[in-house]
């Protein structure tokens, strides 16, 4: 998987990443795949989210950052995987309870550990665990929620924990401001907005595809399709790997 991504990548500008680089764990099976749309020549590949073995992190040791060149092209991406469905007002204490905030996200080891606690604060009414005991990663690469997802604290640990657990995108009816901002700033997860209450029509374990360019979500289990709100200008920032990576890529700040 990592190798194939590498070969597809003519201009890996994404290596300026805000994600800490950590040792890729190749033994982990990726739970989702992404399909760069080749109908348009991709000038670079979106790597962020999409693999639990973090191809971006592994690439960054190979490809020098200096290759980054500004580009304005849009890359079309799909996410495919299983979804985990939650309700309204999922606050940051449910995403990552305060007792785990001693973990420092910029520290690679603790970043991994944060991921293993993602959504551990959900009440016991959620009978299906988001992450199996003794696992670090989730098998659900897409989280579907109701309104006001990520409300509460400003802890960046929240989107980081989801990203570190292997979540590529959250699809919710609406977001709390700071969670949305932190998701974009870190590039950890795509905070996508649904047009309606998809959380009432999808069930945990359904197979989902998200076509980012078309702002479309397909539930293969139920056969239904849903419209998403366009991610807009936040998309390229997440795609780049966060605000610093984006700012470098677009020449706003110098590459170091």
């Amino acid at each position, binding site marked *: 998987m990592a190798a194939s991504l590498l070969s597809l990548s003519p201009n890996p500008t994404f290596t300026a990443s805000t994600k800490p680089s950590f040792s890729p764990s190749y033994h982990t099976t990726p739970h989702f795949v992404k399909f760069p749309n080749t109908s348009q020549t991709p000038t670079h590949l979106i790597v962020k989210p999409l693999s639990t073995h973090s191809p971006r992190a592994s690439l960054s040791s190979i490809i020098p950052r200096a290759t980054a060149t500004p580009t304005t092209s849009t890359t079309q991406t799909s996410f495919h995987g299983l979804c985990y469905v939650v309700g309204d007002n999922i606050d940051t204490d449910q995403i990552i309870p305060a007792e785990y905030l*001693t973990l*420092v996200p910029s520290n690679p080891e603790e970043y991994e550990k944060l991921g293993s606690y993602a959504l551990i604060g959900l009440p016991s009414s959620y009978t299906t665990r988001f992450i199996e005991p003794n696992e670090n990663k989730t098998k659900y690469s897409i989280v579907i929620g109701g309104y006001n997802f990520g409300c509460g604290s400003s802890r960046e640990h929240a989107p980081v924990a989801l990203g570190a657990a292997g979540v590529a995108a959250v699809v919710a009816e609406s977001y709390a401001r700071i969670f949305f901002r932190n998701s974009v700033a*870190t590039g950890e997860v795509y905070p996508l907005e649904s047009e309606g209450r998809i959380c009432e029509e999808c069930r945990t374990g359904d197979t989902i595809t998200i076509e980012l360019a078309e702002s479309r979500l397909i539930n293969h289990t139920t056969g239904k399709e849903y419209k998403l709100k366009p991610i807009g200008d936040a998309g390229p920032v997440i795609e780049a790997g966060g605000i610093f990576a984006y700012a470098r890529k677009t020449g706003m700040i110098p590459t170091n």
Partner: protein
Amino acid sequence: MNSMASSTIAPNPASFIANKKHLGFTAFSTSSQFSIPKCNRRISKKVCSVMAPQQSERRPSTTGSVKTAMTMTEKILARASEKTQLSPGENSWVNIDILMTHDVCGPGSFGIFKKEFGQNAKVWDREKIVIIPDHYIFTSDERANRNVDILRDFCKEQNIKYFYDIKDLSDFKANPDYKGVCHIALAQEGHCRPGEVLLGTDSHTCTAGAFGQFATGIGNTDAGFVLGAGKLLLKVPPTLRFVMDGEMPNYLLAKDLILQIIGEISVSGATYKSMEFVGTTVESLTMEERMTLCNMVVEAGGKNGVVPADSTTFKYLEDKTSVAYEPVYSDEQARFLSEYRFDVSKLEPLVAKPHSPDNRALARECKDVKIDRVYIGSCTGGKTEDFMAAAKVFLASGKKVKVPTFLVPATQKVWMDVYGLPVPGSGGKTCSQIFEEAGCDTPASPNCGACLGGPKDTYARMNEPTVCVSTTNRNFPGRMGHKEGQIYLASPYTAAASALTGYVTDPREFLQ
């Protein structure tokens, strides 16, 4: 008894909102969220200092020749962006006056700062960064202790001017620099000033809006950027205006007002928006009460809350800061997204039931809810006046508490007030004496405490699925420790009254 008591049991008859205007206001929503202007300007101190003198000349607010009216929040952001005009929805690079971080988010912010600006990078201004360990202090958790060490190392390396350190965990009083809860410490140490922009890596940074400034919470990555650049791209929020008039009954506190508002507009009612509080009631509030009001705007999703600075503000600041500041005010013609009006004299003591701050109910509606404990503390309800209020209820009743009652002063200053200030009408007793007579737990070392659960050994953490009446700010599942625990958010009056009965209790039972 209050006049509405007989009319309805619904906590909020629509009549409380006498006038909710929706001023068709759509322009702001069309702007894109991230239209980042391409600028190669490497942010440097030089640019800031060159630009600074222009600010007074360009100030649009007080010239009398204002072209387009602005709200207070718009004006503050415009001035900090060195612009004459900003409208809701616009993204603007805003110069930051103060950046605050603490032990939970500081280490991660520093990590990002070093990674992005370089291992040897220097912060943009060592006097504009305030670092306050406060979250996980009195714990044996090694990682929590390490995080405070990381703060100390960074402050030493960067020669940070304002670092409120603690080294001796066995006795907080042995640490003269140590303050406690960051939002209260910021105010007490004079870092909150009208017209300024304050960012902090904590969602309750909005507390400082009580001083008529723009204050909001940010994440580690944004904080890492600010540490190096001294500015941040912010979207200008539209403003909701809350007009609160009428005399405040003696059984209400600002906590009741904000619970009323959150119950009205819901936990997402102010998402991306600014909340401006005005009216005769707000004018009558002390600074600490205004801080309570602004503290919980984030519980309505708000980006920031503001109270216009006035003589109360200036008086509070007199002995706290020597920095010149310049307040701004909303223009008369400023556009508000909507306006809510409340007659405060008709309100009753409120609680927010589990598990959401907008799950509003009258305290008296919950009188059959048996409770296991009471918690008085945090940035919301752990200030000097909060303890004074609780003491007033205990004093009036003369009885003992029926459930464990935990008291966590927000800061060292508050702790000293609890032990030193006489409670009016008590014949010279201090809060601490009254609490002891009432059978409360001894006031604990100042810090964020169990408001957000924290490490397992945190004082007063809910390690069992108990029911708690708390003066804190959030009651989501697990917030104070146990996922099945139930938290009733309430004012210090209501919390103290509930402690005395062992049930959720309207403080009028003791105060009238």
